[in-house]
């Protein structure tokens, strides 16, 4: 057990949250980060779906890595990812129909999310199943927390609510003339917020700044 959570393994989990964040450092998976962050609930479900898919595709590919013929490895990876995504999509349609309607095509598009193929090629093909599983969860959370952060700002300023709870209405902000910011609902707002997050992260972490 202690070996399963060695400091090296824990690094696999924590590095993608900050120093190797898929969105803010590697700038992968931006498309869906812009599309599903208008409200927190779909963003949360999307984050959860990506965590599940990265973790299990990493696990499966890593388990099979010695048997996968090199020449068709990308095809095998795609088949595994696509099947997991289809299953996740079907489960969402069965149990959280409204959210799946809001996410529409973006669940299906997890297949094309660069984070997945990146982790499979760079990590799962060369590492043991347990490490790959942790790496998948770490990268999924790294993607997910940015999504939640962006959607928090966008929902709070754009719709005046947090996770669907109408905060601004409850504290009476509208009656004193407060108006929601319509820009926050538009896709460009996500780009600006991601930019601000990258800016804050770089100003706090010297190792991320490129040398001239």
């Amino acid at each position, binding site marked *: 057990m202690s070996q399963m959570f060695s400091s090296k393994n824990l690094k696999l989990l924590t590095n993608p949250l900050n120093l190797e964040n898929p969105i803010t450092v590697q700038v992968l998976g931006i498309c869906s980060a812009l599309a599903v962050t208008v409200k927190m609930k779909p963003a949360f479900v999307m984050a959860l779906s990506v965590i599940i898919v990265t973790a299990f595709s990493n696990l499966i590919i890593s388990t099979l890595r010695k048997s996968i*013929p090199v020449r068709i490895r990308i095809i095998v990876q795609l*088949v595994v990812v696509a*099947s997991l995504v289809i*299953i996740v999509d079907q489960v969402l349609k069965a149990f959280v*129909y409204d959210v799946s309607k809001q996410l529409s095509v973006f669940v299906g598009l997890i297949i094309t999310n660069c984070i997945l193929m990146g982790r499979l090629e760079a990590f799962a093909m060369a590492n043991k199943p347990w490490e790959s599983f942790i790496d998948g969860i770490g990268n999924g959370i790294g993607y997910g927390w940015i999504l939640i952060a962006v959607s928090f700002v966008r929902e709070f300023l754009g719709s005046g609510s947090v996770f669907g709870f109408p905060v601004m209405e409850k504290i009476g902000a509208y009656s004193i003339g407060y108006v929601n910011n319509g820009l926050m609902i538009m896709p460009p707002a996500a780009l600006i917020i991601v930019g601000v997050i990258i800016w804050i992260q770089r100003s706090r972490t010297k190792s991320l700044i490129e040398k001239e």
Partner: protein
Amino acid sequence: MNKSNTYIFIYSTVMVVVVASLLAMASNVLKPFQEKNLEIAKKLEILHSVDKGWDASSADSKNAYVDGEYAKYIAETLVVNASGDTISGQDAFMVDLVKEMEKDSSARSLPVFVCHQDNGGVNYIFPVQGKGLWGPIWGYVSLKEDMNTIAGVFFDHQGETPGLGAEINTLWFQKPFIGKKLFNASSQFVAIKVAKTGEPREAEHSVDAISGGTITSKGLQNTIFDSMQMYLPFLTKNKK
């Protein structure tokens, strides 16, 4: 590692078979839940067209709430043919309007849902189906007993432009339809015009289009016209 071609063929065959059976299994297990969701979504759309079912998202059990409201208000359904006569032996709820519209007009069976309001009024709900800019748009139009005045509408779409055409499923767009009339003073079928600023309009038959959503607006206008036209014999027969 490099493997022989035979290995690659066997490997991919086994992989495809395993994956296919897994997916088939998942789809079979989840199907009843998904179909229930679709049924609830359809019932909710029908209820929305008569201004009912708005508490669905805050209800403890959404399915039970929607089923209950539907059973309470939509106690009666009809299937009518192209000449406006009621035909028996078909469940209106299960009729797929898309398929019916592909058929020859004489072979169509068209569903009508009847809503009994709390105040004793009766509304007739007609499904409408057509094309927007990017994909299908559909909805329900409910008429008062005169088979002319609109009591309420509900529209939805698959993938119209967010913020523009997609606005057809919002209340600000749908509310103005209430009270409009399908027939003009000389009993001619004119349906509803979704009119842009500056277009000639008649107050009783026009609503505002969506700025920037011209093609969706026009698509909706045609959707209402084409779909309600199929019901014309039924409307004329039952007109009061």
